[in-house]
């Protein structure tokens, strides 16, 4: 039976061309790019070409792209690498309430090391409070790091305005965007707006898991996390994963070529989905705001436990994610859901539907039908009588 995969914000199915290309590289180009001989040179050429493709996708210079093991490493390298290289300028970092764990955990460690972390509030739609941001900048501020597209609710921050506010106070402050859910899906102009650091990842755009990149603006100093052979301009030692770098580049090429077309398609899919789900006779709350990236729609169901709905959908080969790592057992609600103050009625039953071009309108119809069947069966209020 066909699998309806609606968890594309977690990861995507690899594009067949990408799988073939990775296989081809692994089969024919096994050299170490650092080796002096031609077998090594052939591998180096693949990396060079790949770097150029990814740099072009962002309109940046080739040498500004550092390959990493993925989004988590890119975020770690951006933040730790930047603050450690700017210790003399201050110890104050500003971030938002709705960051990814690969950023939050870095701050926890840095705050133990003596850095001061200030967290900017977000409104009920997940947009950061720009006046709060401007107030929080002080003379010790060295870095502002913000998630560009939130992974749970899809809110897209205004990159341009954030940078303008920063520049008004002090243009020297570094700025990092976690663009992992944005890359290959919306336009990104790091150069135009003056972004210093930007994290991206391959597996959210049908590329392989375990590879990502960090854009580091020319002239911006960061300290490496890994030391060794000095690969990636000494910023990321370790023999390059040639096949995955190639796969990442091909996935990027494909995503960029289809970007506008996919966006329009996914947007109509999302509108269709929201219209249909709203027509169901249940108490449902669309948590993602209208302007959120169409690839991610977070929906709250009242009187439903998200994990129970997830497993029922799974029985019908529909795969989604709970909007948060929450369960009635540990009552740990997602920090994002808390920050945007979702009504308590819905907060136990949040499901994230995240789309890709592989999803069809028929998939949506089928999914909505099944939700309609399942909800009465699993509603918590069921069975109450006195």
């Amino acid at each position, binding site marked *: 039976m066909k699998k309806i995969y609606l968890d594309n914000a977690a990861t995507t199915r690899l594009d067949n061309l990408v799988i073939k290309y990775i296989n081809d590289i692994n089969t024919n180009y096994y050299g170490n790019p650092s080796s002096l001989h031609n077998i090594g040179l052939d591998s180096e050429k693949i990396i060079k070409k790949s770097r150029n493709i990814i740099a072009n996708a962002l309109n940046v210079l080739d040498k500004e792209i550092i390959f990493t093991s993925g989004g988590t490493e890119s975020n770690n390298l951006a933040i730790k690498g930047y603050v450690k290289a700017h210790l003399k300028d201050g110890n104050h970092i500003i971030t938002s309430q709705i960051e990814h764990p690969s950023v939050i955990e870095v701050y926890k460690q840095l705050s133990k090391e003596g850095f001061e972390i200030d967290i900017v509030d977000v409104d009920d739609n997940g947009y950061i409070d720009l006046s709060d941001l401007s107030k929080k900048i002080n003379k010790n501020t060295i870095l502002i790091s913000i998630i560009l597209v939130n992974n749970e609710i899809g809110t897209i921050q205004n990159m341009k305005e954030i940078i303008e506010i920063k520049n008004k106070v002090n243009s020297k402050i570094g700025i990092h965007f976690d663009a992992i859910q944005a890359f290959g899906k919306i336009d990104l102009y790091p150069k135009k707006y003056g972004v210093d650091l930007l994290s991206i990842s391959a597996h959210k755009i049908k590329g392989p898991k375990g590879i990502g990149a960090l854009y580091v603006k020319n002239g911006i100093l960061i300290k490496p996390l890994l030391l060794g052979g000095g690969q990636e301009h000494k910023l990321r030692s370790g023999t390059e994963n040639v096949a995955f770098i190639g796969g990442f580049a091909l996935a990027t090429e494909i995503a960029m070529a289809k970007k506008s077309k996919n966006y329009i398609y996914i947007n109509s899919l999302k509108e269709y989905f929201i219209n249909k789900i709203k027509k169901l006779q249940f108490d449902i709350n669309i948590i993602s705001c209208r302007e959120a990236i169409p690839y991610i729609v977070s929906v709250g169901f009242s009187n439903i436990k998200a994990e129970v709905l997830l497993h029922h959908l799974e029985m019908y080969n529909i795969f989604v994610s709970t909007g948060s790592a929450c369960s009635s*057992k540990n009552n740990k609600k997602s920090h994002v859901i808390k920050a945007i103050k979702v009504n308590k009625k819905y907060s136990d039953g949040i499901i994230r539907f995240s789309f890709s071009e592989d999803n069809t309108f028929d998939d949506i119809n089928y999914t909505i039908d099944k939700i309609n069947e399942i909800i009465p069966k699993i509603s918590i209020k069921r069975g109450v009588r006195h």
Partner: protein
Amino acid sequence: MKEILLVRIGEIVLKGLNRTSFERKLVFNIKDAIKKVGIVKVFNSQGRIYIEPQEENLNFDYLIDEVIKIFGVVSVSKAYKIKTDFDEIKKASLKYIEELLHVKKYNTFKVETKRGDKSFPFDSPHISREIGAIVLEKFSELSVDVKKPELVLNIEVRESSYIYSEKIKAYGGLPVGTSGKGLLLLSGGIDSPVAGWMMAKRGLKISAIHFYSYPYTSERSKEKVIDLTKIISKYCLGIDLFIVPFTDVQLMINDNFPNDLSTVILRRFMIRIANTIAINKGINTLVTGECLGQVASQTIQSINATNSISKIPILRPLIGMDKQEVINIALKIDTYETSILPYEDCCTIFVAKHPKTKPKTDKINEYEEKVEYNKLLEKAIDNTELIKIR
């Protein structure tokens, strides 16, 4: 001079006429648990168990790790076995102290002797005195401190003689299998694995039963229960895990009973199924992780309501413990990290916001009489999956 492991067995030597069978069981359990460590000889003599390696370079740390998990063992010591001959004992003592000093610096010591073999011509104080004297003479850095010595040289004179210094504590208890069989209701939370471990410690041979409600709970919650069973099975010398498909029963409860009584009724159906499976398998008791007052289904009224339908006793080793005490044991036996993985389990999915804390058994009986549930229970029992965890 040969390195061996000396195993002390506490309580079981007091068991009068049962003593031999208890000791035999313990030797059997030890042999079973340490097969994987290497080739060893295990035997008991005069209220002790001795483990003698039969191969070179046996990993003693590994051996000790496995042996101290076996219930019935009170403590172990790595010891030298020597011939019962005073000259031999003296020579070995000096060599042993020299080895110890090689690893760590000691300033003070004392010698403690136990003479089990009364035909040996010198009494214990005499042996201690003489050995102490030659140690002092040879190792000028050591002095005697009988109150708080840094190093105690223990000498046991029996058929063979043994010298050792360190005692490693084990859990005590009774050998698994000497107290009959019990069926543990295993949910996947913190409490039930601890309850199973505690009853195994009192010699109960544990089997476990888990109620599985896919797709209300997940495959992962089942994996979690299997993982927990694996962890406690090291202490229990293997566990038969019964996985009961419970979804239909749970839906029946949710359809037919008031929400605020559903948890206690759920527990009653679990006990019914567990009773049948236990009795079919010749198991004489149930074990639960219930703890008085912890949740609504664990008040004395709720416990009464579930207890009243069981045909066999229900043991509740955690009944008087605080949560933190239970967590401490879970940490010690290594189940805690697995228990806190956040998956839904069958007890949490339909939970009422305000369940009744003082349910009336008569009332519950009335409700239950109106519902035809036997077929559903039979079906659940027929489709129960057995996983043998070793």
